[in-house]
């Protein structure tokens, strides 16, 4: 079946086929829409052959942050976003907890910490819950209700993964300190699920799961969307502008470059959905300035690119005397504690931090990060103890600030003539307070779990970029409404963590998947009118 639209105008154009874009492709093609998806990276259609079990193979799956201009002390270009069909879900570690109700009510609960621009989310957890249920079902999340969760929470689609040896030590260590733990919810099959096999514990999740035990959006969502015959997927296709040709309140399509030939194309769509990550989305909007929007698309109130924030990622390592087979198993969250997801006596800042165990083959990360002060035999002897190491990571909640933002540098152009992004990110006092508390807790837990030598990486590095196109009811303080629909441009939508108002202390992908489902449903139910209005 042809996937090109009869009159040359697609029902929807999706920019970026990562974690969020894949959800839109799946939902809209299922509803009968004719969709064009443009993805900067390649497609890996046969994971068993295309992926290799080697840590270096991860790099081709990651978005390259090195071209950005950086200002401030908070952004170290840590790669945490994807490149290619499936985006970050190819290399992710699949930890998938839900946000808490309190996370969405940050301003009401904590006020506005100094320097921050926190607001409440313009939707409640109850509104998001059906989409969370569905997102977990699509991803096949394995887990068990944690002591922090509501008793009415729906069962996970899969039972929890078994604990690894290192997780048992950490669990007992936490228990000694009165900290509760549970198996982390992971989008990794603990048993065969919907045609995908169980995890084989190979330890190479970051390099792409060869057997699709881990949720990877290209296989789970994009392949069925292609099978409908209604998805026109173009890879190595870089979108350089969102086009607005007729009026300032509707977009008409996009300009994109075919990277193999450097040919430029224009594509027309009744709806455009931009899902190309929290740095590239505002960059694209700012680079799409036009006569109607001279300061950048939808940027009349100078909100595009603002309120950027990340999690602070602190890594802890404790060497024990025991053989733990640390290198074996899925990468993160075999054990998790969310006891510190809220401020408390031990975490005086506003917001909280999570604790997650690490396993698998990330030895290079250990040498690069917590052992970075070692060299020579001191380093090598420690690395030989890798399989006796307890590894623990914490994500601390970072807060948005109006001054932490993405702008474009018109004096620095990429090879397609587009201004590159400038990332301005200076950590707030509250961010530092949360990550210091997380570091102290990591140390305590590692000692209590039987470590004889402990290293905690400080200062923390950033993880999970968020914000920049935030949702809100007030168009002067946000870019989109609660459905990710851009204020004032009713056929332009956003997907991804750029919509987040605040970011909790848990990884973002389950939540951005749930939000994308919510927006897609809204489009399908309300969008008939949008399509007719073209």
């Amino acid at each position, binding site marked *: 079946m042809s996937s090109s639209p009869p009159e040359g105008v697609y029902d929807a154009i999706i920019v970026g086929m990562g974690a969020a874009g894949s959800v839109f492709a799946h939902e809209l093609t299922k509803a009968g829409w004719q969709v064009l998806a443009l993805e900067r990276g390649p497609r890996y259609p046969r994971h068993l052959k295309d992926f290799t079990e080697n840590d*270096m193979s991860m790099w081709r799956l990651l978005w390259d942050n090195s071209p950005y201009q950086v200002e401030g002390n908070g952004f170290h270009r840590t790669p945490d976003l994807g490149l290619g069909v499936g985006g970050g879900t190819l290399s992710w570690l699949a930890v998938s907890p839900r946000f808490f109700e309190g996370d969405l009510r940050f301003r009401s609960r904590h006020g506005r910490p100094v320097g921050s621009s926190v607001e409440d989310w313009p939707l409640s957890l109850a509104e998001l819950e059906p989409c969370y249920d569905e997102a977990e079902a699509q991803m096949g999340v394995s887990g068990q209700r944690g002591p922090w969760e509501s008793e009415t929470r729906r069962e996970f689609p899969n039972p929890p993964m078994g604990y690894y040896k290192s997780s048992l030590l950490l669990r007992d260590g936490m228990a000694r300190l009165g900290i509760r733990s549970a198996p982390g919810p992971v989008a990794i099959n603990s048993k065969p699920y919907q045609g995908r096999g169980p995890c084989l514990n190979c330890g190479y999740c970051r390099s792409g799961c060869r057997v699709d035990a881990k949720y990877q959006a290209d296989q789970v969502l994009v392949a069925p969307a292609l099978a409908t015959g209604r998805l026109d997927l173009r890879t190595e296709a870089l979108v350089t502008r969102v086009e607005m040709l007729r009026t300032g309140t509707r977009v008409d399509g996009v300009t994109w470059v075919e990277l193999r030939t450097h040919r430029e194309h224009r594509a027309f769509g009744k709806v455009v959905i931009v899902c190309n990550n929290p740095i590239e989305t505002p960059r694209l909007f700012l680079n799409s300035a036009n006569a109607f929007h001279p300061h950048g698309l939808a940027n009349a109130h100078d909100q595009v690119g603002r309120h950027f924030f990340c999690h602070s990622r602190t890594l802890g390592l404790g060497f024990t005397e025991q053989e733990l087979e640390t290198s074996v198993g899925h990468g993160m969250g075999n054990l998790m504690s969310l006891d510190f997801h809220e401020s408390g006596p031990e975490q005086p800042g506003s917001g909280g931090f999570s604790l997650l165990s690490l396993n698998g083959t990330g030895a290079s990360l250990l040498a690069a990060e917590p052992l970075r002060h070692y060299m020579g035999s001191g380093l*090598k002897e420690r690395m030989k103890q890798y399989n006796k190491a307890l590894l623990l990571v914490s994500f601390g909640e970072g807060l948005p600030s109006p001054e932490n933002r993405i702008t474009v540098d018109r004096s620095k152009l990429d090879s397609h003539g587009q201004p590159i992004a400038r990332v301005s990110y200076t950590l707030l006092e509250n961010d530092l307070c949360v990550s210091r508390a997380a570091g102290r807790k990591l140390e305590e837990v590692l000692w209590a779990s039987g470590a004889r030598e402990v290293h905690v990486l400080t200062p923390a590095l950033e993880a999970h970029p968020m914000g920049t196109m935030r949702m809100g009811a007030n168009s002067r303080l946000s870019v989109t409404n609660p459905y990710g629909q851009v204020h004032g441009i009713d056929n332009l939508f956003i997907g991804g963590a750029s919509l987040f108002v605040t970011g909790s202390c848990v990884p973002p992908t389950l939540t951005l998947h749930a939000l994308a489902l919510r927006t897609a449903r809204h489009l399908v139910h309300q969008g008939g009118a949008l399509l007719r209005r073209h």
Partner: protein
Amino acid sequence: MTNPSQRLSPADYETVDALAATLLPSDDTPGAADTPVVPMIIGILKGHPEQLELFRSALARINGLARGTYGDELARLPPPSREALIGSLSARQEFHPFWPMFRTLLMLCFYSIPKVCRSIGLPGPSIDQGGLLPGTRGEESA
């Protein structure tokens, strides 16, 4: 043709070799000198002219420091002086962002080389043999 200024000179190459071998010496397990880690790093830099330039100027400054402090290029210093000099780089602001970037790149490349992985007990590829199920888990389940 590659612009010569976009390549590392043989002297730069020697300095990178010396840095790598000091950070990761050979012992009963492979060290940097027993692996292709330096060509791997140089290969990665080739796609990033700005990074390559950062490397070239930092390597020149390292050798300047080596000559000023110990009277010779880094690669020709005796091991104790080499170690002392390299040990001081992370604290010197003038070697940022080169030093953290170089060290990270070196570790990421080195600890992904199969014989290095084996030497520290990483299992290596296993999926084609059915993965790592038996004996890899704790006795209890969650």
